[in-house]
């Protein structure tokens, strides 16, 4: 739910980083916090347990620039990844404008990824939000690990695409971030599908962190355009 304040000339948007436990959601925010200029960001708030596991959420406000005289302010949130914190995880989705799903690339975390993705769909549906109709980006994190699953496998499991029923949108649309790939395409079965934009990342070193943030922010602003 983007909020436009004409008095202070600000556009406020909410982006939530979602995904399985220990996948790197908080690390994404920490990297952004460390890299952006101190005068364009607020405090990084973490409601975590003593062992640094996110209990409720992490929160970081950042200003990404000015459009038409309006300051674009993005509120970045992470959710607790651990399964038993679902009640608090769901609360954070309230009023969300864009979602980043941070997947853990390690082969042995595949099931946790799938479970978290299903949980995301379920929680969004409970609010009446349709994930396929809002800014949604997938980040495959931990690409540097030796046990990382091949990209194609992750894409097939976590980003198989959703059906495009609107005939006006049934046309091959190139993926602007991955030359040679398509965001909207027709399957051999004749069905049209749309995939979420995806990025590979190594959040601990910052690889892919800003690409992900920029892509989701841009998608969010385009919903206002």
């Amino acid at each position: 739910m983007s909020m436009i304040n004409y008095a202070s000339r600000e556009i406020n948007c909410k982006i939530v980083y979602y995904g399985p436990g220990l996948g790197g959601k908080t690390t994404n925010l920490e990297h952004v916090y460390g890299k952006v200029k101190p005068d364009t960001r607020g405090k990084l708030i973490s409601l975590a347990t003593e062992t640094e596991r996110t209990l409720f959420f992490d929160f970081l406000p950042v200003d990404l620039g000015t459009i038409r005289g309006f300051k674009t302010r993005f509120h970045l949130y992470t959710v607790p990844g651990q399964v038993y914190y679902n009640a608090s995880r769901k609360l954070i989705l309230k009023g969300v404008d864009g979602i980043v799903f941070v997947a853990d690339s390690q082969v042995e975390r595949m099931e946790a990824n799938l479970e978290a993705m299903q949980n995301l769909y379920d929680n969004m549906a409970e609010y009446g939000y349709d994930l396929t109709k809002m800014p949604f980006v997938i980040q495959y994190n931990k690409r540097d690990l030796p046990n990382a699953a091949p990209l194609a496998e992750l894409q097939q499991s976590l980003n198989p695409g959703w059906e495009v029923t609107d005939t006006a949108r049934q046309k091959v649309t190139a993926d602007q971030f991955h030359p040679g790939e398509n965001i909207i395409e027709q399957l051999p079965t004749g069905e049209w599908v749309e995939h979420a934009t995806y990025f590979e990342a190594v959040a601990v070193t910052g690889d892919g962190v800003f690409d992900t943030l920029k892509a989701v922010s841009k998608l969010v602003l385009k919903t206002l355009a």
Partner: protein
Amino acid sequence: MAVGSASWSFTEEDFNAITATLQRFLGETNARCALLVDRSGQLIATVGEQPTFDPTAFATLTAADFSANDQLAKLIGESDFNSLFHQGEKESMYLADIARRVILVALFDNRTTLGLVRLKIKDTVLELTKLFHDVFTRGKSAASKPGLLSGADDEIDQLFG
């Protein structure tokens, strides 16, 4: 417009009306400061003494506090708690729900009493509920109009390089 992301905006007149209501509340109660926070955690307005803390972080935590308490209410068989009170040694805060979309937070110290704040906040909540009702209704009818950034695609592209 994305499904589920019911955007809303308010004009300078709305802002002035909201501010005037809050100023009156502060005058009547001698509370230090009143903040309005949207349920998704965004700060809408601050009136009175300017807070010394980070208001953005405060707004986020307020929304989370209210949402968590809503869930607690459901667990004990209530639909929600429409007000919350946090008491400190010197500073206290009173939080009240407005139209299930916005939270009014009153910060006060021992220059006033909880009783007075609680009494006066009721009228303030009623007034603000009416004001916000108009804002939200207008937001719905405006949803089909071109957005604020309509035609700004190029500018958005440039912003992100």
